[in-house]
C-alpha cells in the first residue's frame, strides 16, 4: 500500500539505521555489558556474589520495600483517580498537580525532605526520639522515601483511563441496585484492570530501582539499610566489579521482566479496548 507521505527508500533506511545504532549503543550494549561483567568469573562466582549475606540482605530489603510501597500506592492511586475522574470537588486541579510533584522534584531533594522531617535534628526528631522510633537510617525511612517517589505511577495511569470511561456504567449499576463497593469491584475495577496492572508494573520497577531518595535516608548500613541499588554502589566503590555487576544484573533482569510484562499488558488491554464496532447488523 502506498502512503501519501512516502520517503525515498534511502532516507527511510538511513533513519532506521540511526535509530538502531542509537538503541544498540545506549540500550543493548550496556545490558550485555552488565551480564558479561557479572558472569566474568563464571556462574559459580556469580551465585556466590548473590549468596553473600550482605547482598542477600539487600535483596530482602528491596523486596520488603516494594511489597509495602506498591500496595500503598495502588490503594492511593485507585482512590485518587476515582475521586478525580468521577467527582467534581474544589481543589481537584491542585490534587492533580500534587500527584505530579514527585516527578518534578529530584529524588535527592525528596530524600532530604524526609531527613529534615524525621531526622534527629528534624521537625519530628525530638518526638520520635522520645518514643524510640527510628525512621531515618532505618527501614521505615526507606519505605517512606520509596512510597513518595513512586506514588504518581498508578494514579497517573488511571486518571485518563477512568475519565475516558465516564460515569454511565456506574449509574446503570446503581439503578440496578448495586451498592458502592459492588459498583467498584464489579464494574469500575474490571474496566480499569489493565491500567491498574500497567501502573503497578511501572511502580514496582521504580520502587525496586530507586536510588537517590533512598540513598539519602538509608545511611548505607551494610546488611541493614542497603537496598539493591545502594549495595551495587558500595561494591562498585570497593572495586569489587564482578560482585557489583552480579547484583546489578538482578535489576537489569527486573527491567527486562518489566518490559515484557508491560508489552503483554499493552497487548491484552489493546485487545480488550477494541472499538465497539458492530460485528453484524441485525435488529
Amino acid at each position: 500500500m502506498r502512503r501519501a507521505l512516502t520517503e525515498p527508500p534511502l532516507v527511510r533506511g538511513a533513519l532506521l539505521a540511526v535509530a538502531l545504532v542509537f538503541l544498540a549503543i545506549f540500550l543493548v550494549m550496556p545490558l550485555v555489558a552488565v551480564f558479561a561483567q557479572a558472569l566474568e568469573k563464571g556462574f559459580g562466582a556469580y551465585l556466590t556474589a548473590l549468596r553473600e549475606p550482605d547482598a542477600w540482605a539487600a535483596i530482602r530489603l528491596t523486596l520488603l520495600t516494594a511489597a509495602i510501597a506498591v500496595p500503598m500506592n495502588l490503594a492511593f492511586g485507585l482512590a485518587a483517580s476515582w475521586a478525580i475522574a468521577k467527582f467534581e470537588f474544589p481543589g481537584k486541579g491542585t490534587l492533580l498537580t500534587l500527584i505530579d510533584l514527585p516527578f518534578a522534584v529530584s529524588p535527592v531533594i525528596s530524600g532530604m525532605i524526609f531527613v529534615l522531617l524525621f531526622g534527629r535534628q528534624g521537625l519530628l526528631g525530638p518526638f520520635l526520639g522520645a518514643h524510640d522510633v527510628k525512621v531515618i537510617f532505618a527501614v521505615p525511612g526507606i519505605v517512606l522515601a520509596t512510597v513518595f517517589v513512586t506514588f504518581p505511577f498508578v494514579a497517573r495511569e488511571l486518571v485518563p483511563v477512568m475519565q475516558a470511561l465516564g460515569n454511565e456504567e456506574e449509574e446503570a449499576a446503581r439503578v440496578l441496585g448495586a451498592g458502592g463497593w459492588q459498583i467498584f469491584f464489579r464494574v469500575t475495577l474490571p474496566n480499569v484492570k489493565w491500567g491498574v496492572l500497567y501502573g503497578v508494573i511501572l511502580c514496582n520497577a521504580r520502587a525496586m530501582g530507586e536510588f537517590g531518595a533512598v540513598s539519602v535516608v538509608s545511611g548505607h548500613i551494610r546488611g541493614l539499610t542497603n537496598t539493591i541499588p545502594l549495595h551495587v554502589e558500595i561494591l562498585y566503590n570497593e572495586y569489587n566489579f564482578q560482585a557489583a555487576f552480579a547484583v546489578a544484573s538482578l535489576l537489569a533482569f527486573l527491567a527486562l521482566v518489566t518490559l515484557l510484562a508491560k508489552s503483554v499488558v499493552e497487548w491484552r488491554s489493546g485487545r480488550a479496548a477494541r472499538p465497539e464496532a458492530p460485528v453484524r447488523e441485525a435488529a
Partner: protein
Amino acid sequence: MSIEVRNVTKKFGTFTAVDDVSVTVPAGELVALLGPSGSGKTSLLRIIAGLETPDAGIVFFEGEDQAQRDVRVRRVGFVFQHYALFRHMTVFENVAFGLRVRPRASRPSVADIRAKVMDLLKLVQLDWLADRRPSELSGGQRQRVALARALAVEPKVLLLDEPFGSLDARIRQELRRWLRRLHDDIRLTSVFVTHDQEEALDVADRVVVMNRGRIEQIGTPQEVFEHPATPFVMTFIGQSAVFAGTVQGGKAFLGSLAAVDFPAHLHEEARPAAGYARPHELEVTRIENGGGGLWATLRHASPAGAVVKLELTDPEGGSLQVEVTREQHEALQAGVGESLYVKPRKLRIFVQEDATSDAPDTPRAPRA
C-alpha cells in the same frame, strides 16, 4: 404504577434545566417527553429515576414521595442513551447483574437467575447471543440488551433516554414498533425522552412537549398535532407556514393575507401575532378563490408519494410549503415561476404575549 411530578425545579449553576414542572403519568401508559436539546427533558427523566435530586418539588410513585428513596431502592428500569452496557461482561451477565447484586436474603438462586435471564433474552429475541460481549453486537441488539437488563429487576416504571437516538433510520422504525408492542404486552408505566416528534407521535399514548425547561403542552399525539397550545408546539411538531402580523379590534392582519376576524382580541391596541397553517391546510388555485389569501410564485414542485410538495415565495420573499394531492397538482397544471393563489383553509392565530414570556419572540421558520 403511576408517576407524579409536582412543581419540580432543577438548576445547574445559573442554567435552569427544569423550571417548575408538574406532570402526571397514569399507570400503564407510555409517555413521551418531547423537546429540542436543552429543553430539560433528560434532566426531568433523571430526576424521576433518582439520578438527579431536584432543587425543589416532589416526585411521587403511586402517591408515595420518593425524596428519601435512593435510586437503588426506587425499582426503576433505566435505559441509557448510549446503553451503558457493562463492556467487560457478556450479554447474559449484563442482564443478570441486577439480580446478582441483591442482598443474599433476596437474591434468587443461580438456577432461578439463569431461567429469568434466558426468559428476558427470549423476550428481546437475543437468547442466541447470551455469550457475546456488548462490543460484538449491533446498535439495535445493544439497545435490546439494555432493555432486558432494565426489566430484569422487575421495575415498577421504565424510563428510556433517547432510546432510538443512536440507531440508523430503518432499525429505528422497526425497534420503535417493537417497543410499542412490548409495552402493549407488559403494560409497564413507561416514560421515554426524544427530540424526534415523529417518534413521539408514533409510539406514545401521550406526549409532553417541553421547551426551555417548561411544559408547553400535554396531550395525545392527535391533540398536540391538531390543537397545538402554543406557537412553539405548532412549529416544533410538524411543518407549518407562518404569517406574521398583528391583531387589533377583533381583526387579524397577517402578512400578505387579507384581514380575518379574530374575536379573541377586541382591544383597539395592536398586538403582534402570527397565524400558522399546516402544509396540507393551504389551498392552491389559479384564480383568486373567494379572497382571504395571497398570490405567491411557485419555485419548486416535488412529488413525494401520494402528495406533491410545492415551494412558493410570497410577495415579501417568505417561503411557503404546501402539500397538495397528486390529482390537485395535475389539475393545477402549474409551472415553475407562475403565480398561484394560496389560501389557508385553517389558520391558528397566536397573539404574542409580553416580551418576557416564554413564547418564541419571532415565530420560527417552517421546519423541514
